[in-house]
């Protein structure tokens, strides 16, 4: 199995979720994060004092899928989340050794 971690723009979340559901992804974990990258943040000014806000709000997805589905998930996210503007995000793929469904105790591919 693979763990696919993706940082995307927040307003793309719903679209990506739908696209993934369409190709058979049945679950994911979503976290609101602050992203740092080439997309620059902005400056906030409080009573004349400037604060550089280097972080940009992003959404981070974690999806565990069977090896077979992984490539398709990556390309689906890449296509759906893309806006061609800087800051669209990244996708990373890691190896997962083991998976368990808490409710049933099913393991690995059955757990997904």
């Amino acid at each position, binding site marked *: 199995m693979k763990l696919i971690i993706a940082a995307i723009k927040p307003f793309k979340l719903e679209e990506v979720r739908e696209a993934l559901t369409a190709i058979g992804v049945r679950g994911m974990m979503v976290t609101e994060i602050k992203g740092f990258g080439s997309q620059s943040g902005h400056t906030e*000014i*409080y009573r004349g004092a400037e604060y550089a806000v280097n972080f940009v709000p992003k959404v981070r997805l974690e999806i565990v899928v069977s090896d077979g589905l992984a490539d398709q998930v990556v390309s689906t996210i890449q296509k759906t989340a893309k806006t061609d503007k800087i800051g669209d995000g990244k996708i990373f793929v890691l190896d997962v050794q083991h998976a368990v469904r808490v409710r049933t105790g099913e393991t690995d591919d059955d757990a997904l």
Partner: protein
Amino acid sequence: MRVGQGEITDMTMNAKFAGNVKVAGLAALGASLVAGLPAWAQDAAGPIQNPTVEQMATMVDKGDTTWMLVSSALVLMMAIPALALFYGGLVRTKNMLSLLMQVFMIVSICAIMWVAVGYSLAFTAGSPYIGGLSKAMLAGVGTGTYGATFSNNVYIPEYAFVIFQMTFACITPALIIGAFAERIKFWPLMLFVIGWSLLSYYPIAHMVWFWAGPDFLVDFPTDMGLLWGMGALDFAGGTVVHINAGIAGLVGCLVIGPRVGFNKEPMPPHSLTMTMIGASLLWVGWFGFNAGSNLESNGITALAFLNTFIATAAATVSWCLVEQLRHGRPSLLGAVTGAVAGLVAITPACGFASPGGALVLGLIVSPICYIFVSTVKKMFKYDDSLDVFGVHCIGGIVGAIGTGIVADPSLGGQGWVD
């Protein structure tokens, strides 16, 4: 009770806040036969001098009493929740609750102190610098004693006067804490507040606001305060409240030293929403503070209300314009900071200025305060966390100087009115 140096004998005071004697039903009859003519008839004969407490009882208008009670509720609302939220939104999340707690407790402690000794020290005769303890625990104040207003033969229940002044004594120390927010410990702060009230607020309130009242001026001609004689005008407490608190804040923040991480980590406001709620309620409550300071409800009260409204609006707009010019866009924090600067500046002037004068005062105060919070603070590197000095003290000084100008009748001001 705008100014007064407190050179007043105890006798005068007994006459003025004619304590102790309850006005029981028919007991007031004799006095009533004299005082009982409608107000205009008294005008014809001139106001009654040195009225007795029975006469005062007939000189109370329930519309005034209501106004004073409403104003008092508004000023309490300025402290909790308004000031607490205004300040609270500006600190970091981790300091929010402690800041709210500080304001809430300061109000409570100062309320107790006011009843115990504060009212007496501020509003009884004593030395020119501070009153005595004859009204400690409000001894002699009752439902049948009255406080003078600025009009001849117009009185309000003394309890209402006690309450109104109490709200001022509660909010002023709370203003200070913005200067050393995010680094002061709870109990030391409470001790500071107790000490500062005793050593600074009560004496200054006594020196600036204590006088005999208009009906006692003729027979007690020396009952005119030093500052009054010098022509100082302070309608609703620019000096006593704002400059006083602003200086205390500056001194405090210098003594305590800057926050850990000051100028190293960013310390942006954690919730401008809370700050905006606070600023809005400060604006609403300030009507009680300023227009309530007229102690009755008439055309001058309405003028003070209007001036408060218009100066605040003008200062809001002018702060935003400064930001537009300097940074290319206005900010919510700028708008609300401007509003508070405007409120502070109009405080001493609100009953004297014309609406046009108030407008100008509001437009002027924001750029000046802006320079202090952005440039001067950076230059001198003191850590006035929430700009108590830059907004309250500087705004108060602008207001104090401005008052002398905008009160001028040739500029549409009221001059020196009672």
